[in-house]
């Protein structure tokens, strides 16, 4: 599970507990530079807590976290400077317009004015938000808000992207643009960690996937390694996931519901 190469994100013995609930249970993880890493797991399995600990938003009870060569606990500000983050349900400043919001984010990351303008214009055009950028975000649809949140994670050219369910609410065209963009950024050395429940997206996009369950990694590797671990050589990620998390026997549940 642990690579010998220099890693973009390195977790060692990381644990986090909320009163009597173990959110993350002494995990080790190495995510390489230029990798799209998928985090899968049932609700409450510890994916989001892991993501927040990587960003320095939540302090681990034990263990160490190193992000882009920086200790996340000791220097969270330096980590945040190099990270683009989109939470699962991003609450944006709805009283700002789309353009004001992106201008705000650009300033927060200390971007140069002309560079900020160019990037914002490019992204607004690519994600088809042109013409609505002067409207208050409160009037945007969920998908438009997600696009704004994604642009805000991309514009300052971060080295690490932490994207919780990044394609949630996006129309097919925008989803495709974001997927292609992530692949392109990967080729430039940008690392992406992506918790998701959409197994098809994880299978199609991620170089490696970790399946989390009750705060631990049940399996970690590329799709072939996961198949081997689950002993399901021809199966897709859904079957692997259900088998590994022990939630595969769903026929009885459905029958019970239909009674």
């Amino acid at each position, binding site marked *: 599970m642990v690579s010998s190469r220099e890693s973009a994100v390195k977790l060692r013995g990381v644990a986090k507990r*909320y*009163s009597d609930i173990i959110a993350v249970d002494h995990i080790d993880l190495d995510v390489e530079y230029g990798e799209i890493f998928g985090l899968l797991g049932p609700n409450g399995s510890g994916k989001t807590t892991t993501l*927040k600990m990587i*960003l*320095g*938003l*939540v*302090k681990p009870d034990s263990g160490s976290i190193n992000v882009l060569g920086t200790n996340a606990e000791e220097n*969270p*500000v*330096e980590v*945040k*400077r190099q*990270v683009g*983050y989109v*939470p699962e349900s*991003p*609450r*944006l*400043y*709805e*009283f*700002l*317009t789309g*353009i*004001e919001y992106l*201008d*705000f984010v*650009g*300033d*927060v*990351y*200390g*971007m140069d*004015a*002309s560079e*900020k*303008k160019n990037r*914002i*214009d490019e992204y607004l055009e690519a994600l088809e938000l042109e013409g*609505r*950028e*002067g*409207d*208050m975000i*409160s*009037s945007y649809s969920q998908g438009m808000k997600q696009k704004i949140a994604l642009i805000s994670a991309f514009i300052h050219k971060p080295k690490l992207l932490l994207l919780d369910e990044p394609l949630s609410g996006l129309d097919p065209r925008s989803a495709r643009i974001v997927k292609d963009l992530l692949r392109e950024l990967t080729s430039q050395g940008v690392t992406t960690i992506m918790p998701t429940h959409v197994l098809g997206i994880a299978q199609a996009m991620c170089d490696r996937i970790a399946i989390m369950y009750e705060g631990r990694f049940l399996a970690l590797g590329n799709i072939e390694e996961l198949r081997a671990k689950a002993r399901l050589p021809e199966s897709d990620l859904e079957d692997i996931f259900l088998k590994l998390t022990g939630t595969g026997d769903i026929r009885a549940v459905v029958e019970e519901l239909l009674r």
Partner: protein
Amino acid sequence: MNWKNVLRLISVDTKSGRLIRGQRLRRYTESKLFPYLLYGGSCILGLAIGWLVGNFYSGIPDLDTKAIIYQGALNLFPSLPTMVLIYSLVFTMMSQIQRSGARASIQPPYWLPITWEEHTLASTLANLIGVPLASIVLIGSAVAVASIFLGTIALATLTIFALLVSAFLASTTTEIFRILQVRLVGAVYKSSGRAAIWVRFLGTMLFLIAFYIVWFAFTSGANYVAIVEGIASAQSTLWLIPYVWLGIALVFFIKGLLAYVVIFSLASLLFILVLFYVAIRMNMRFGLYEPPAITVSRGAYAPRVGFLGKLGFSSLEAAVMKKDFKAFTRRRELMYLFIMPLVFIIMPLMQWVGGGERFSPFIFAWILLGPGTIMAVMLGSMIVGSEGGSIWHFYSSPITARGFVKCKYAFVTIFSLIVMGVCSVVAVLVAHPSLDLAIASSIESVLLIVALGMVSLRSGIKGADFVEIPRPRMIRPLSAVVNMIVCAVLALVILSPLIPYAISMMISLMNLPISLPKFDLHLALPISGFVSLIITYIFYKMTLKNAEDFLTKAEV
């Protein structure tokens, strides 16, 4: 009408206030302590007041005095429904203004099998829960006990019934106002285009000013006896207005004209039914109305380099300050922060306009010191909590604790100083104060803003509450109370070097034959400034520590 649905909806509304920062809701058990304290305390207080009044009345040996007090009680009872109506109207309207833009908690009824009648009734009744209901319990229990001694049990019973109906009447009116403002405001935005933001801001401010002018015109300079007398006489002259019919019915009951009692009571009930029907129809028509999008800017985007950068703020700090300015001028639920400064200006001005007297130097100092200081205290304590669910931006941004405190504190002080500046212009134009007084008041105002802004920011970080539904809390109640007490004490400490100056001014105003040693203002002001700076520095260190903790413990 499914009454269980109504009760369920009211229950949801009351439970929406239970989320408190730092509490894990997994094992939440609802505390009954606050309702017990509120309603139980009001009831006990009311019973005690009623018992005291009753005993006092019984103990009067002189029959003439007794008759005067009895007559006073007879005047009071018919005024109570109108008083409760006005009070409930003010409270429920204010409560609507503070309601959050977040609509999550009120949307589920729209897709659940709940009728508009049930929804409207639940919303109307839920408006009354809390202080309006507690005040009815207080007044009602006092009236009930006092009436036993006065021998007016029948009148008291009718009065209590009228109190409840009046409160419902007020709440129904507020419900109509709520729906109307959603629809009208939407129409205004649509027609005002890019100016919509300022139309909204100025509209809200004008509403608040108008509201307070009416409120102070009604209450300023008057004691409660005068208010009761005012209502009693107003009711008879304004009998065409349905809102006073309940009070008029009570007047006729006292006079023994039962036919008129029945007529005005039935007319009141009919009026309530009509209002309620209107509220239901409006909810059906506009309940699901989505306000149009507000377009703020069109054309090519051009980033601007603001003057904040020249003042030494980093781009991050300047961005946060600009964002905060937009929040306080665009978020309707935050605009009520402007109420306190408005009250501080309107209240003395109303008294001055009404009385026609020369402006007292103390009122000048009040207008100059009050609004800016109150603004600093309120803004400081609420600015962090006002982020609500959007606080994740700070958790994930590369902002240091020092930068966080710097930009939030700078916003609080700059905004408060602007308010102070506007108020001082008003005060100088109206009062023509002496140069000494103007300088002393201005300097003290700045010192209070600087120190109390920092004190409050520390409370605002430590006690931040990000709950936004049904209205943004921004700061936990206990932290708010503690902050107010600490600020009051520290304000006195800062102002204390000038107490001899205030005393000498008072003596000269009252022409008292007392001679005091000459007071040196030039010495008192630097001492006051030194005290203010010490307080600011101590609290800055504490705020910085709180900010460090705050930024490393993400809560959303």
